[in-house]
């Protein structure tokens, strides 16, 4: 009998703890609630800074963009979320498309964020710029051999290219903008050329692809610059070098991480104020430097290490087109067996 009693007590205790925790969580209704797909260690410093400045407190969860959007959608009007922060314009476009965000008219935001880095309908604003460009082995490749993303499809790169998987949204966005720029058939030719040039099965992340270049498995790869920055920080005398792609044509492909106020936000004004603050130089430099990205606000200079990579011209296509063409890009990559 004792065992049963222990068991029942345990279950009762569990339930009590559970409900009291959720009741506790439910009580503080004046806090700003954030759903963030940007990782906790990259976003929390900004929450802390804002709390210090204004006293506004935060509650947040972090997850991948897909589950967060599904949760927003399922919660509907009852959602506690005020702000959705996510990486990648494709996700922002999708959130907006599903009606999860509300339009914000703000002169501060419009002044601080260039027009190609925000939603034409003002439902979301890019907050940091992530440039995706070429990284090559400085000891085996001459800089003048490189020119553009498309060029890597040429026969001279046979067996010398490493790529990250096409399942990563960064590559989907890159190909989507190529579709927008050069049309689907031409883009498909390029991606087919990439696949034919691969030196190794595609990698699960940018860092692994760069390490393969460094180790001599291949000569060049396409990565987001902050991954290169991290690798450089860890290993300052690496043989890897950064090359700004497409400087004579479309410019370097850029993506954003950004945020929008949710449609059913309980504190829309406070959320908008926070979003505006995020676009100011004070927050922008933290936002970008935390992860060695570029600030969306052009007035903010990058950190020293990032500045050393030199200036580049970025693709000024509105980043939301990557979202619109994402499905087209994935289908294209599937057809030519870019896994």
């Amino acid at each position, binding site marked *: 009998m004792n065992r049963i009693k222990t068991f029942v007590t345990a279950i009762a205790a569990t339930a009590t703890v559970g409900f009291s925790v959720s009741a506790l969580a439910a009580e503080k209704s004046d806090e700003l609630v954030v759903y963030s797909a940007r990782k906790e260690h990259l976003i929390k410093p900004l929450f802390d800074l804002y709390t210090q400045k204004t006293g506004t407190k935060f509650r947040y*969860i972090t997850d991948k963009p897909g589950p967060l959007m599904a949760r927003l959608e399922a919660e509907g009007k009852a959602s506690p979320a005020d702000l959705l922060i996510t990486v990648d314009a494709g996700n922002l476009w999708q959130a907006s498309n599903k009606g999860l965000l509300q339009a914000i008219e703000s002169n501060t935001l419009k002044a601080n964020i260039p027009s190609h880095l925000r939603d034409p309908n003002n439902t979301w604003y890019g907050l940091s710029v992530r440039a995706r460009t070429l990284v090559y082995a400085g000891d085996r490749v001459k800089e003048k051999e490189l020119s553009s993303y498309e060029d890597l499809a040429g026969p001279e790169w046979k067996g010398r290219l490493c790529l990250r998987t096409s399942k990563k949204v960064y590559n989907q966005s890159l190909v989507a903008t190529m579709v927008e720029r050069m049309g689907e058939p031409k883009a498909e030719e390029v991606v087919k050329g990439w696949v034919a040039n691969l030196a190794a099965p595609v990698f699960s992340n940018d860092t692994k692809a760069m390490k393969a270049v460094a180790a001599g498995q291949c000569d060049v790869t396409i990565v987001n610059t902050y991954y290169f920055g991290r690798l450089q920080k860890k290993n300052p005398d690496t043989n890897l070098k950064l090359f700004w792609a497409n400087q004579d044509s479309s410019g370097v492909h850029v993506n954003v991480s950004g945020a929008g106020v949710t449609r059913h936000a309980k504190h829309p004004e406070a959320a908008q104020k926070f979003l505006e603050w995020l676009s100011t130089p004070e927050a922008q430099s933290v936002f970008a430097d935390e992860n060695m990205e570029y600030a969306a606000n052009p007035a903010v200079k990058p950190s020293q290490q990032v500045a050393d990579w030199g200036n580049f011209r970025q693709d000024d296509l509105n980043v939301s087109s990557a979202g619109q063409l994402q499905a087209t890009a994935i289908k294209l990559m599937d057809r030519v067996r870019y896994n």
Partner: protein
Amino acid sequence: MNPKGRPWITPCRVAHCLCGITTPHSSRLTWRNPWAAGRMFNCQQPLVSLSQRVLMHKPWRFSALSIAAVVILPLSVLLFSWYEVPVDIWQHLLETQLGRLVGNTLTLLTGVGVGVTVLGVSLAWLTATCEFPGRNWLDKALFLPFAMPAYVLAFVYVGLLDFSGPVQTALRQWFGIRSLPEFRSTGGVIAVLVLVFYPYVYMLARTAFRTQGRQLFDAARILGRSPLQAFISVALPMAKPAIMAGVSLALMETLADFGTVSVFNYDTFTTAIYKSWYGFFNLQAAAQLATLLLLLVALMVFGERKARGSARFTQSQIRHNNPRFQLAGIQSWLASGFCTVVVLLAFVVPVAQLLQWAVSVVDIELDARYWERITNTLLLGVMAAVITVGAALILALAKRLQPDRWTNFSASVGTLGYALPGSVLAVGIMIGFSWIDKGVLIPLASWLGMEPQMWLVGSLPALLLAYMVRFMAVGYGPVDSALQRLKPSIPEAARSLGVGGKSLVRRVYLPVIAPGTLTALLLVMVDVLKEMPATMLLRPFGWETLAVRIYQMTAEGEWERAALPAVILLLTGMIPVIMLMRRAEK
């Protein structure tokens, strides 16, 4: 009892027992009591005794069905996705993806299935019945990989053995060997999954070999069989239910896996699910694909039951203190060598690598929040284990005490959640709970004048229920097999001695299943500690666990920083694993 051994059910009786009222119709009838043979159950008995009988009978079926309902909720969310088919996505997947992905998935299942069987059974046989140098600690050490999350082993090994990793780099520099086979391949991913999942087979098979006794094996030897023949024709068939239970757990884990295969970039059926969801932004197509996966699992579960079929070996409860076969000479060293290599590969090498990484980042990564992460992880593990195993106990007892189609159904459905990819199941649970929130709780709250909010989604109870749905199979297995080892004659004897009803459960069933229950608690706990996707989506605001931290780091490609939470998770997971080992020793 009717001829099939099921309690009599009639509409009248159901009405009677559910409502506790005596209809004019029922009052004229009598039934035989299925519990106490010979005594008659008379509906005209006073209500007091009637309610006792209700407590005795219906709660099992009612509780079992309620548990099944909780499990069915997210599954039906997935089924509902079929109300409309996104044709273009399906067409695209069929044309370019599904053939290859199904092929890959079947290859993976076959490879892992064969691998865990061979490795698990051979290790179990060696450590359970033979004596060789180091056997005493090797048999315990072989449990350790239980604590290792599959995705962690995957990123450690890809880091070590890839072209740019230290092993191949050294080979290139010292010996100039350049053309080694690519580690990120079908063979590599199978090897990693086998190393992580063999303990399920090892643990269950080992117990089976320890408890089956030497007599039959010796009889076969006396009749002229070689040790190997005797093993194949006698010991193996007797351990078959246990082995198959272990293999099916491993296969379900394999089907659900997304972390490991994505480290290898090995595309399986789950890849198509996530491609539809994250790539095409089509949760509906993803849910539909998930139901197909579910169908496959249902077939597997059904197949396993069929295959087990009539083959039941009611094993004696006595722990045999069998003398072990003393291996000698080269044989004994081969045996120790084999076990040592497995322990090295599955545990020592990855832990050493993790430690090396963890030490290199300890000053930037270790902060005060780790206490919170550890306590959250442990708290969730313990609470989820209690709830899940509580539910599993109810399912197993209901099936045993009141075997009818409802309790059988509940038990089968209850275990389906284990094979679904975590995120898909999590989103199913999340949507299901949000229906309850919006359909029931919010209207109720506003009627009571409270502010509408999500009560369930993002609450701790919801997260715990999600764990229950996901890990029921893990908790149910040991409890059920413990119950199955109870010979029918024992409760019969108890009944003939006048012990029935609640006291039968308390005095006969519970003591017998107590060891299985403890094993189940520990297994579920280990799994919950490692669980990531459901925790991410359903946790209360601000809750972080070690697994979530590992994800935050690996998603950014920061393997070294992920090593610290991984090591701490391993150490935390060792607590229940060591308890499991000690139990296995008894």
